[in-house]
């Protein structure tokens, strides 16, 4: 299956050459979870703070479906 991925803030270094938030496609085996996606991208799990699937915050055990949009963030804050 294919999912659309957006990496933010310091995570753009795991997909260099594009502005943070620019979507790219990743092919994963059926049944993969958010954690599988993060491992596939070689992002250390301990650095991940908030993940979205289709605009909803989800935990790392959440299963992905074909065509899902995932957004992955390190800790961010502001005001």
């Amino acid at each position, binding site marked *: 299956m294919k999912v659309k991925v*957006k990496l*933010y*803030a*310091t995570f*753009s270094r795991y997909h260099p050459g594009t*502005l*943070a*938030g*620019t979507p790219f496609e990743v092919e994963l085996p059926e049944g993969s979870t958010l954690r599988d996606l993060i491992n596939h991208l070689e992002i250390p799990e301990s650095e991940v*703070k*908030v993940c*979205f699937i289709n*605009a*909803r*915050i989800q935990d790392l055990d959440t299963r992905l479906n074909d065509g899902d949009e995932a*957004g992955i*963030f*390190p*800790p*961010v*804050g*502001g*005001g």
Partner: protein
Amino acid sequence: MYFVRVNMTDRTYQVTEVPEKYKYFAGRALTSNVVADEVPPLCHPLGPNNKLVFSAGFVTGTSAPTAARISVGGKSPLTGGIKEANAGTSWGADLANMQIRGLIIEGQPKEKDQFWGLHITWDGKPKVEFFDATPYTKQPLSAVYPPIYEKFGDRVSVCSVGAAAEYGYSNSGVCFNDQSKRPSRYAGRGGLGAVMASKGLKFIVLDRQGAPGVEIADKALFEEGRKKMIDALRTHAITKPKGGLNSYGTAILINIMNEAGGLPTKNFTSGRFEEAPKIAGEAIFETNKDRKGKEIFNHACSPGCIIQCSNTVYAEDGSEITSCLEYESAWSLGANLGISNLDDLAMLNQLCNDYGLDTIETGTTLGVAMEAGVIPFGDSKAAINLVHEMGKGTTLGRILGAGTETTGRVYGITRVPTVKGQSIPAYEPRAVKGIGITYATSTMGADHTAGYTIAPEILGVMGKVDPLSPEGKAALSRAFQATTAFIDSSGHCLFIAFAILDIASGYQGMIEEINGVLGTNWTADDVVKFGAEVLKVERKFNEAAGITKAADRLPEFMKQEPLPPHNTVFDVPDEALDAVFAEL
């Protein structure tokens, strides 16, 4: 510690010891209590009976980190209720070092179109001199700060108002210098700039030379607390050097709010802006890197800050367009207007700084004007022209300067994002329910800083709660509002909350710092009680001013129009909104 009262009717002043009642008040607690005690709730905000009150926080001016906040209070011309707005600046630290716990501006001159400045120095106690400021009016603030520094010397701190305040706009802030003498740090919300200008006051220049500094009752305890606070700020991923805020500034939030479907777009018609990544903190960082040939981390707005979140936006030729472009401003003048040209966005921000406008209120006003068809969404050049109209004081500019609600009324628009007359900032209540409760119930009108439930609802700070669910959110907002009223009195920047809400020793450190300064034995429970008392005082003033719980509601369209991408409305029951203060 002193109270300095300046009477602008006859240009006299009085220095007294701090009255007993106010000995344990500072910052917001002090400004709100003085306003509640001394300002008639039904007075005209721009008339002689309103007062403008300045107070730095408990630990401002000490070596406590990230603690140079100055609170400004009065009756707001925008909301008609009580107002406290605060900013980070050396001006706050200087006022505290001169041992001025409260600076109270009273009265009104009979002379029209004349402006004065105050030059406050230390001469065994605070000393006030008046100077003619009329020649500095009707000019961009970036043009008048250099001659003021030339006149009074490099070491002074400068507070001022811009043309927007001189015209009496309900959208006008009180401006302070940053560390590079830029007029850029605003107590922006609620129109307190116009209150200052209504008193014929253009500048307050502080020269702290010779001042004794802040007295600390228990130095050992203060040091202990300060170290814990420093450790928390240096450790937490959001606040540490080269962490999120230091690298990408507050505009780091553009992408996460967009991802959450909660970034208000094109006058609150969507929670997503397709071009959001182009105006985000990451884009500002990368653009600067391209244009300056190196990575540029952010700077401090005020002395002693560890977080250092203030960015600068550079033009293609490497010159500075503006500093600082905050999340709120990148949103209000960007996504909210459908604008993604970063250079034009930075210019809009700079014009607000130059004319003395609040960036949030300006962006939401232009959003309503775009909805009315005055100019098209996305037209950044036309938006720049409208801000110039505001700065010049044309008829259209004056309508816009009166704020979002007035502009909506003038053009017959129903989608007007305001609560109690003040516009809603950069978090969509239909996608993030807790912050909607804060907007509805805050004593300040719509104000994200009043009870920042975004921390657990979106950012995963202090736990995680579902942003789309209304469950338990009244209690959450109430707790945040009370704690915030205390932090706003401490002198610390609210951003310490990211660290101390996650790191318990940092929270303890804040209490120890303050107990060290005051010689008190306050506990964590006292913090919440103190904050709740401040809220009650503010609430009582508002009720006497005619702002009752009927005003604790979001605009009607938010209950009726589903917001993409979640297609949800604001579904928090009125009873839950009423419970915020009923159970305080």
